[in-house]
């Protein structure tokens, strides 16, 4: 790894006038920081609006005493992250690329989790948890085949036996009892 950095001196004329510093920033990280900062600004507005609408109480320190400064801080730090990202965006370099259809994979996993949440009371724990395992494993790049289903089934069944039957945590059973 370190060899690459030492051999760079002889290589290409730098395309950017400011060469990436040793702690150079990744473009993706900078953009994500900006998005996170923006999200904090939105949250700041929500927190402040919510705190202002709280009714006055007889207590010396009302329910809005803490949310108000928290909202202001959220806004300040969010703005700070936005400014910081704006400054860093100029010197940012592209980081390691994402794998193919990365965004789609995340969406698919979200869909799998939502489906799990909705189907769990209907189909029971073992079937839905097996399906979740298989979906997640395939999205993470597991080789296709019955093996993955077998692993998932074994895990879900073990969890059901240990936590439902042994410990007494009631898991949804589904029409077939597991």
């Amino acid at each position, binding site marked *: 790894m370190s060899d690459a950095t030492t051999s760079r001196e002889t290589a290409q004329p730098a395309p950017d006038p400011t060469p990436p510093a040793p702690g150079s920033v990744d473009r993706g990280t900078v953009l994500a920081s900006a998005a996170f900062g923006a999200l904090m600004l939105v949250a700041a507005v929500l927190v402040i609006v919510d705190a202002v609408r709280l009714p006055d109480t007889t207590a010396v*320190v009302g329910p809005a005493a803490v*949310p108000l400064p928290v909202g202001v801080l959220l806004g300040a730090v969010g703005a700070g992250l936005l400014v910081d990202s704006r400054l860093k965006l100029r010197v940012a370099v592209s980081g390691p690329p994402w794998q193919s259809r990365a965004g789609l994979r*995340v969406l698919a996993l979200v869909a799998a*989790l939502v489906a799990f949440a909705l189907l*769990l009371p209907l189909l029971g724990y073992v079937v839905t948890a097996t399906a979740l395992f298989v979906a*997640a*494993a395939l999205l993470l790049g597991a080789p296709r085949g019955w093996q993955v289903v077998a692993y998932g089934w074994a895990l879900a069944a073990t969890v059901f036996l240990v936590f439902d039957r042994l410990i007494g945590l009631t898991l949804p059973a589904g029409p077939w009892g597991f």
Partner: protein
Amino acid sequence: MDQLGLLLEGFAGALTPEHLMWALIGVTIGTAVGVLPGIGPALTVALLLPITFRLEPSSALILFAGIYYGGMYGGSTTSILLNTPGESASMISALEGNKMARAGRAAAALSTAALGSFVAGTIGTVALTFLAPVVADFATGFGPPEYVALMAVAFVTVSALLGPNLLKGVASLLVGVTIGLIGIDSQTGQPRLTFGVDALLDGIDVVIVVVALFALSEAFGHLLTGTGHSTVQPLRERLMLSRSDFRRSWPAWLRGTALGFPIGSLPAGGAEVPTFLSYSVEKKLTRHPEEFGHGAIEGVAGPESANNAAAAGVLVPLLTIGLPTSATAAVILTAFQSYGLQPGPQLFTESGPLVWTLIASLYVGNVMLLVLNLPLARVWARLLQIPAYGIYAGVLVFATLGAFAAGGTTVDLLVLCGLGLLGLLMRQAGVPVAPAVVGLILGPIAEQQLRRALTLSEGDPSILVSSPITVFLWVVVALALLIPVVLPVARKRRRALVNVGDGEES
């Protein structure tokens, strides 16, 4: 020597078959999750919280303490054999440890890590035994203003130390505090940040937040970047330390412990700092400087001991003041609360037998961990052969199980999913998630103390700086906030001055 008598009684409680079994289960689970990359002790304790609420408090707390200590041992196995630390404080031992493993000295590296962890863990627990009652005694005089100031210190140092920079640390902390505000305000009964959703009236369960931020964000992150290929270094021999390795290791163990415990026990943020310090100390003191960077055994022995000693140290502010300074400690604080126990000075007076049983079980756990890790190291190493997709898919199954057990409704699972996406954004932005967990758990306590203090003074904020201790703590807060801002500026100015000086000379 009051403590010795109490500790002996604690041992009497810890050495019952039932408690021994829970300690063994705890350290075994702890080692396993420490070994597996992507699962840490904080996540594991959070997942087990809703499942263990039927247990006796002492059994559950012994189980969690075992997981806490075990996670530290297991983390070193992963960082040495795989070079992806399972747990962030083990990052440093990956530097030298993985180099040693590549040079075929995996057994020596694992031995020194395990023995060092044992030595440091035991010395740290002894120190905890004698220091904790003293601190608890001192803290009995604390009122709400002191607690507010202490929590401010913890907030600032946790934000500054558990992440890449202060701004991102504070951002993470605020996320946690904001989530902690959701729900009915306990003092006035007003719903806050619920936006008319009934399911939010009780707030969002700590378990769901921790699971989403640690487990889901990790799984989502691997969907973006792919799971990658990592090579596991083989472990062929039995774990043994040669005479020369032992001679080089033991001073490093002791130095690591001496750094780790005091820093860990300050109300100021976790195990990362002492491990870094220990590494640089060993690098300076070594008689084999040429080996550093290529697998020097001191570079494993020192940081590993510092890590474990700090883990014991973190328990001092947690048990005596109720102040968690790491994500795992924060989750353990939640565990105490779920049994109606509030860590703090009163814990030692009101639940003395429980505390001493817990401390005694830490000694027992350390011995168990040494036995589990030295002869059985190859079994743990085999866990690393599980493919990454299997680990993360399995983590998701357990994550949804924990979230379901905590809330039991479909809405909880949807909240879990949404917070997981938030965690993914944080991860991508380089925002650490540990301060969020500390903020989530400490935020409501801090708010309660603040309002209690202001109610006492009828709204006069000067009560917050009414005693020498509070003034001192607020100065610490100010310094911790200013130093990261001032230092780089000063350094830059000095560099600029030097450059100007150079320019004039030439």
